[in-house]
């Protein structure tokens, strides 16, 4: 057992603790770091793979892009709901995955669900394709291409550079 199994998780847990306490008092910082150190040690068996973030800047840009897209997607879906629902053309599309890591696939599925009128619905048992349900799909191939270009390529750079 290494002393610090998940440095990224340690940092995030400490940050979450400080946000939860809503304070930057030295005692809280110390407690946050302590929790961030102990919790990953006790939960190491659940996530044996070490998380590597290879391109932090790409990750930051990805998060910014995600917030922007969430805003657009919200307006879009709200408009689709208010319009005549019978005119919607919902569809399932299959996105072939290039991501291989658990974290990468989860992040991709989460991004897909939060953004452009799509919800990730099903991951094939061989983890090679993700089935996505779109609320109003005009061109399935274009949708798959957009999802791969906008979300999968940055995530590949962050979690699995070759």
């Amino acid at each position, binding site marked *: 057992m290494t002393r610090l199994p998940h440095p990224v998780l340690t940092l995030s847990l400490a940050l979450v603790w400080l946000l939860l306490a809503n304070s930057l008092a030295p005692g809280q910082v110390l407690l946050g770091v302590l929790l961030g150190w102990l919790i990953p040690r006790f939960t190491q068996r659940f996530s044996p793979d070490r998380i590597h973030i290879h391109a932090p800047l790409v990750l930051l840009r990805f998060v910014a892009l995600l917030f922007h897209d969430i805003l657009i997607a919200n307006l879009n879906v709200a408009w689709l*709901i208010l319009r005549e629902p019978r005119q919607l053309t919902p569809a399932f599309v299959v996105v072939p995955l290039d991501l291989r890591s658990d974290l990468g696939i989860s992040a991709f599925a989460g991004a897909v669900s939060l953004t452009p009128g799509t919800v990730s619905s099903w991951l094939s048992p061989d983890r090679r394709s993700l089935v996505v349900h779109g609320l109003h799909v005009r061109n399935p191939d274009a949708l798959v291409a957009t999802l791969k270009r906008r979300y999968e390529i940055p995530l590949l750079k962050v979690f699995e550079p070759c």
Partner: protein
Amino acid sequence: MLDILLSLLILTGAVFIFIGSLGLVRLDDFYTRLHGPTKATTLGVGSLLIASMIHFSLQGNGISVHEILITLFLFITAPVSAHLLSKAALHRQLRSRAPLPPLINTAETEK
């Protein structure tokens, strides 16, 4: 002036949450209904939380940031629960307006 801004944020939030819930009534199959709660509500809750952050930060007890955590937890849990609901629905082969992809049918019958 500030009150107007806060009221606008709260109203926007309420409107989006309402539209998200309205989606449950107006849309007509399980899969399309999933879209309302996962999307329209994130913006709704988001603007309510921004209003809360501004309001409590200006009360004089230091800045209030734990609303960011609510956003974070919401953004992690909403897609996961939507995915699980949708996966369960596909497994039970619920009625769907969109044709199911052949991939799922073969995998489900092989089990």
